[in-house]
């Protein structure tokens, strides 16, 4: 087995309130090998996105990592000086959000936004960045990339915007992309195209993917392994076939049973809300 690219050990994230402290992520451990896709599933509030933000050290106060280690390419990200962390964030690990319209700058041409990812990290001059932006738009299959670089986000459809987001994420040739519900806001036919694109790029660039989703269909299509989160804890992790076909934990079973079409009972068996 190769050394993991990302190795999260006993991660705990707490949010201190005036009267009580909430543990949003509780003693979570998982790892991702180079080129591997780990699906992180769970429902709203289970701690999936907080985990992603903790890895990138983007937690906002009062949220903080109160315990654990996050090894990436052999270094513990939690002890890196902020200056070095900036060279990891967006360059070695990049992030794709659910909502491309809010994640893109509405008053900046898409080519400049892609180029910015390169110039900020000192990986290209401005002129070079523009040329690379066109290549990246071509890599994510945007037609007429040479003209589209001058478009503003509002001139693009939802699926195209998500492709631009992916182009930005790819710009610095990262080893890991964290994709937080990357297709949730998209129509199913557009989702299919974006998933196909991610699969293609994953192979082409040997990308590891931390895919955060609540959709088991997306998991089945994309993930090598799956980790299931519930109320801040990982309740189960394993190979995708094992989790989908023979889930060991009661919560995973009930979550899968709630997916329409997976049970004889009309409407599905829902897990208890408590």
């Amino acid at each position, binding site marked *: 087995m190769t050394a993991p690219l990302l190795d999260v050990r006993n991660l705990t994230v707490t949010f201190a309130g005036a009267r009580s402290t909430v543990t949003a992520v509780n003693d979570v451990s998982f790892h991702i090998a180079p080129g591997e896709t780990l699906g992180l599933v769970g*429902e*709203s509030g289970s701690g999936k996105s907080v985990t992603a933000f903790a890895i990138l050290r983007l937690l906002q106060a009062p949220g903080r990592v109160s315990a654990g280690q996050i090894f990436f390419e052999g270094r513990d990200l939690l002890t890196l000086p902020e200056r070095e962390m900036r060279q990891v964030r967006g360059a070695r690990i990049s992030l794709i959000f659910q909502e491309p319209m809010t994640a893109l700058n509405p008053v900046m041409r898409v080519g400049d936004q892609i180029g910015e990812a390169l110039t900020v990290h000192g990986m290209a001059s401005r002129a070079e960045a523009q040329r690379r932006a066109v290549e990246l738009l071509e890599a994510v299959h945007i037609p007429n990339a040479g003209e589209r670089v001058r478009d503003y986000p509002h001139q693009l459809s*939802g699926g195209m915007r998500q492709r631009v987001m992916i182009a930005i994420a790819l710009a610095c040739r990262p080893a890991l992309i964290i994709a937080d519900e990357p297709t949730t806001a998209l*129509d*199913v*036919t*557009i*989702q*299919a195209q974006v*998933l*196909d694109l991610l699969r293609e790029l994953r192979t082409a660039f040997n990308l590891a993917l931390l895919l955060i989703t*609540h*959709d*088991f*269909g*997306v998991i*089945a*299509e994309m*993930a090598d392994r799956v980790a299931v989160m519930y109320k801040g804890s990982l309740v189960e992790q394993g190979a*995708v*076939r094992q989790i*989908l076909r023979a889930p060991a934990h009661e919560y995973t079973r*009930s*979550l899968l*049973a*709630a*997916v*329409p*079409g*997976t049970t004889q009972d*009309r*409407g*599905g*068996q*829902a*897990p208890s*809300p408590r």
Partner: protein
Amino acid sequence: MTPILDVRGLVKHFVRRRGLFQPPSVVKAVDDVSFAIHEGEMFGLVGESGSGKSTTGRCILRLIEPTAGEVLFRGENVLAFSRERMRLARRDMQIVFQDPYSSLNPRMRAGDIVEEPLIIHSLGARPERRQRVAELFEMVGLEPDHLQRYPHEFSGGQRQRIGIARALALSPALIIADEAVSALDVSIQAQVVRLMLELRERLKLTYLFIAHDLRLVEHICSRVAVMYLGRIVEMGETGALFTAPAHPYTRALLSAVPALDPDAPRDRIVLDPSSFNPDAPLRPVGASHFAAV
């Protein structure tokens, strides 16, 4: 048997002025849509964003005034109704919206939200209304002590139960559920769907279930219509339509739904718009199965 709802040739065009010297642009949001729903049926209307499915639902209730067509509810054309007559008709036809966060008045208590339709329609004195609200809360699985709470104190699933209780207050016959469970987590979605199915049995309700989630529609609807660019391109019994889709768009749409099996073959069908005539009328392609091919 007369269908409870019979939509005939429904059209909604949105006209947008583009400037002094340019002709206005016309968006054909709903373009000659016809379908009928029978009493007690759960009829699915599916499509992607911009297909016109929500506009169709709103035109039926005249929340948006259609451009042309007929909407027969129990044989009467509601589009010809006066304001007052339409107000009465809405007792029988109610809508549940997608977003339980923006569709409930944040300054009203849950009990008052559910009582409001009874007040508007002058049904019963206050004690009777409160009695009815208590019944409705029980019916949708909310607790009596929830009556005094404000919407922000509820979870998404509970809010959608409040929306359902409010829709049921006037004892309607038809519920238009417009993406009513789309914003909910899958486990909560399953609970709310189960509630809707239970209520259908108990109150003899008919549903127009508008959704983009094909797996969910396949699971709960008896018949389904597929909308694409303002038109119904295919309609039929759910089983037949999902196993043997006849229209190229339906095939592309179904092939895009991720399979829950990691080893399922991924035979994506990409829609080729030139492969069909967009103006073709629906014609029979099987028993109770129609497609615009």
